[in-house]
């Protein structure tokens, strides 16, 4: 088929399209996150001492850093679904912020003094449950991001998938942070990082598949 014939075919019977809106997509993602959070809180899964803990530096650090990472990752992911935006610098920023959050967490609170060993502090059984919960909570967000990515036009789908995975993982972690009863920053850093990393790797592997611009 010649170029002229293709152009005629494409322009014949052209229908109006609804323009993509970053604001609308971010609102959808925030709405989904809030719905998940409301569902968790409605089921009574919030930690019982949240009222006392919410003002503590530890909780401020945990929720604040996760919220910042989630919001920035969301913006980077959604913006990267546009052809003219490359998420490279944004991803670098998220990595820097994540490292800063980890260092801050380890500085802000050395952890409980009565936990003698590293293994006890990490408490693997509980940690695995936490990581699994975060992964489950991030699945709906990742699914929505995958749909938005398919409807968008990312010219760097692999990086967009990374940003989406980070956004979904940190969002799941932020929601789960309202339920998590452990107050040890080392535990949080290790298991939350593990869960977010797993979600990011899964997104990177799944989302660009069969994607065609």
């Amino acid at each position: 088929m010649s170029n002229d014939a293709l152009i005629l075919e494409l322009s014949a019977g052209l229908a109006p399209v609804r323009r993509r809106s970053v604001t609308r997509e971010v609102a959808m993602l925030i709405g989904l996150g809030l719905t998940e959070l409301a569902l968790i809180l409605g089921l009574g899964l919030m930690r019982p001492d949240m009222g006392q803990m919410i003002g503590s530096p530890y909780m401020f650090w945990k929720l604040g850093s996760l919220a910042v990472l989630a919001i920035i990752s969301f913006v980077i992911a959604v913006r990267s679904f546009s052809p003219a935006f490359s998420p490279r610098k944004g991803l670098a920023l998220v990595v820097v912020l994540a490292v800063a959050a980890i260092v801050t967490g380890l500085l802000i609170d050395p952890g409980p003094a009565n936990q003698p060993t590293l293994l006890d502090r990490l408490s693997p059984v509980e940690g695995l449950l936490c990581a699994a919960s975060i992964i489950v909570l991030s699945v709906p967000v990742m699914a929505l991001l995958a749909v938005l990515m398919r409807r968008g036009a990312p010219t760097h789908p692999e990086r967009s998938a990374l940003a989406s995975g980070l956004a979904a993982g940190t969002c799941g972690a932020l929601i789960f942070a309202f339920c998590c009863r452990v107050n040890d920053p080392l535990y949080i850093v290790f298991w939350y990082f593990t869960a977010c990393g797993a979600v990011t790797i899964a997104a990177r592997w799944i989302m660009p598949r069969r994607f065609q611009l």
Partner: protein
Amino acid sequence: MRGDFPLIRYEYEIMRPRFPFRLKPDVSQDTTRLSPNRALSEAFPDEWAGLMAAAQDGHGGAYRRLLSEVANWSQRYFQRRLPLGDVDDAVQETLLAIHRRRHTYDPRYPFAPWLAAIARRKWIDQLRSLGRRPTEELPEHLSVGDHEVSIMSASVLASLLEELRPAQAQVIALVKLQGYSLEEASQETGLSLSAVKMNIHRGLARLTAFIENTDDVE
């Protein structure tokens, strides 16, 4: 090759792999290169953005005009970056991508970066498909021209010319085999024109006599 003594010259064209496209854009003169956003914006400041906005509202005429101009631009863009046989595919892939993703263009922003990013992505896709494209190994029994006769002739002529005096062999090789004129042969050998003529005449006569008196010359 003049001045050598190639009785029969074999010229084997070395089939070097041609790579007529650049992996890196030519910075000097390419207005559609990888950081083309500014150049493209300067070349097509606002018109395409307006046409695309109209196309998003369902205006077929504006869309047809836009795609025609984008096709021309894409043609130039890919001609500098891909083998000629792949240019049309890349152009059409770009047009299809623009059509499928036209809702992602935001008219508040310039059209050029949006288009350039899509074209660049299609360029990368084409390069990847080039790398994946299978290459066929030539079969061993593929028939090629037989050089045996030429090689035998060269060998026989060399042995015949060895029967002549060096001056006769040289001028015969120059004039009768390599196509020199008598004057050029005279300049090449440093002999006079009449000496060249005489050496050729006597050399050929001697060769004729040698051949007539020899049985095993093929």
